[in-house]
């Protein structure tokens, strides 16, 4: 039997095979041949990921516009767009809105509600929990455009919320999305995205063996102590993963707020997320170079956040 560096993973195959085909494949993979298999993927990534990023960075340093003469003939203007961006009140406002939106609707709303739901799903003898889970799931799977329409209908001055309020004697003169644009998209996004956190936490809770709960119970832990000292530490890593994913997604949310508020983000731009801002700049103002610069800034911010999360991961799970 061949000795040397292709012991290890190919060893098992050697024992099983009659020695021909699989041996050849193994040595083929070990050589440069493996690279050939990567070429199609690399080409696709190059066309659809790397090129747009490079192009985007380039455009952000020009005076390109969506229409007009500078749509075709634009010139390199260096970092001017970035300076313009940070002097733009609307951009700074959209940063603030996006941060608040992510913290409130994702990190607080979706994660806490998702965890609470996941905990409830594990309890025995709670009636109607399947119904709740189903509703949560439906919110997650219906198309975003439909969800957006539904929310603008529900929060309209002739919609469900107004009907309920007037039932309690509160008269509503305007639509809720008009008077409280930011609050409406926060709640809508919690409604929309909680299912993911719930699933993730349910899986994490399933991973804790039953006897650990039992040991804690016998040791005298109250339900709250069990959560605090046993359950929470054991799912802390899942919470971090959840935070990473929902942060990325929530910063990128566009369709749902767009459907409810339009690119302006409602009255006083109170709900203008940076995604809406970019759309607004590129499509309404034709200023695609500035929009490109804005998206690059957000890319760097989100990347920094993710790196911070990943870095904090090493403080978790030392056991």
């Amino acid at each position, binding site marked *: 039997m061949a000795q040397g560096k292709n012991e290890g993973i190919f060893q098992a195959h050697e024992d099983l095979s009659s020695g021909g085909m699989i041996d050849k494949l193994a040595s083929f993979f070990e050589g440069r041949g493996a690279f050939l298999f990567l070429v199609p993927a690399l080409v696709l990534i190059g066309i659809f990921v790397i090129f747009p990023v490079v192009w985007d960075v380039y455009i952000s340093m020009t005076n390109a516009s969506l229409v007009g003469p500078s749509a075709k003939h634009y010139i390199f203007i260096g970092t001017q767009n970035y300076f313009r961006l940070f002097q733009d009140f609307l951009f700074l406002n959209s940063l603030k809105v996006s941060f608040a939106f992510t913290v409130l609707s994702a990190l607080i709303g979706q994660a806490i509600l998702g965890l609470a739901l996941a905990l409830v799903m594990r309890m025995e003898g709670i009636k109607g929990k399947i119904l709740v889970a189903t509703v949560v799931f439906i919110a997650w799977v219906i198309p975003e455009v439909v969800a957006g329409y539904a929310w603008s209908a529900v929060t309209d001055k002739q919609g469900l919320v107004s009907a309920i309020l007037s039932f309690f004697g509160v008269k509503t003169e305007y639509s809720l999305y008009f008077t409280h644009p930011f609050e409406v998209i926060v709640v809508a996004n919690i409604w929309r995205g909680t299912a993911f956190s719930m699933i993730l936490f349910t899986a994490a809770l399933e991973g804790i063996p039953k*006897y650990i709960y039992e*040991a804690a119970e*016998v*040791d*005298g832990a109250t339900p709250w102590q069990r959560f605090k*000292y046993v359950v929470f530490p054991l799912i802390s890593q899942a919470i971090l993963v959840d935070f990473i994913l929902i942060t990325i997604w929530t910063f990128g949310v566009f369709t749902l707020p767009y459907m409810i508020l339009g690119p302006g983000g409602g009255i006083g731009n109170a709900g203008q997320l940076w995604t809406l801002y970019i759309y607004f700049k590129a499509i309404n103002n034709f200023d695609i170079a500035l929009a490109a610069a804005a998206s690059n800034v957000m890319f760097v911010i989100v990347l920094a956040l993710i790196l911070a999360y990943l870095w904090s991961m090493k403080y978790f799970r030392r*056991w």
Partner: protein
Amino acid sequence: MGSVELKNVTKIFPPKTVAINNVNLKVHDGEFFILLGPSGCGKTTTLRIIAGLEKPTKGRVYIDNEDVTDLPPRKRDIAMVFQTWALYPHMKVYDNIAFPLKLRKVAKDEIDRRVKEVAKMLQIETLLDRYPRQLSGGQQQRVALARALVRKPKVWLLDEPLSNLDAILRVQMRAELKRLQKELKITAIYVTHDQVEAMSMGDRVAVLNAGRVLQVGAPNEVYNKPNTLFVASFIGSPPMNFMRVALKNEGGNYALVAEGVSIPLPTELGKIIEEKASDVNDLILGVRPEHLELSTAEDSNIRGEVYVIEPLGSETILNIKVGDNIIKARLLKETTLSIGSKVFLKVSTNSIHVFDPSTERALF
């Protein structure tokens, strides 16, 4: 203070596994009580019902004469060693042991003192700074034991807490555990399938089989007066010898007879058997290997020929063919006998057991 009582407790796991069947037990305060039985007989289930981790299908559980059947585990003031240890993977050994105290808001230095004390007793004081995954099985088991012993609850529930230790350590730990239990006078319910452990540690032993309690008594009681074939065969090593015999009555002189066996019985004993047995011609005679001794031909009541000799150093186990049976005799000295030679054995009528094969119960 911690007596434990089970009244008519039955546990059925759906759809129809009867794990324990109408169990009645009374464990006295301060007692070292053993649950002994083969694998799957319901020992763990019984313990879990006392702990409150399983709800009995029928029956009630009392701790200190208080009905705790509907109380959750944390309100029962018990500590338990799980058969699977159930250590907290994210806590170091120290924190695992300290956890029950921490929950009760015991002062930090008191926790420290007690954790170190119990760790020392169980010889794990050098491991306090490790996580459970960094320990061997036997070490993890001792951490689980420490977590139970660090507290002074009403009852300790110990599910085979020494099963993973090597022979030497196990003997040491048995002694330590027993000493601690007597010192603190905490009621202990100890599960084992090791009859030596049961005999050496227990104040009383309950022998279980197939979900039922067959006999409860002091170790020498279950050893000397087993009430069923099962208890007789389960306790003792090597196990009791069994032979099919018949009761003969010749003008008031009773004897148990079979090929190679003829044991004269006192009249009262003969009468009891005659009265209780469903068929006097089909009985099971039980004799422990240690109760058989070599004798002369005239004095003997069992005879056969040597089949195998097992010298074990301090003692010798003789395997003897009597009729169609091979029985074992335990001799405390070396023997000059050789395979195939005739042997004459004597057993005192005080040490014989007679069972009715149809009921499997002892007749006296």
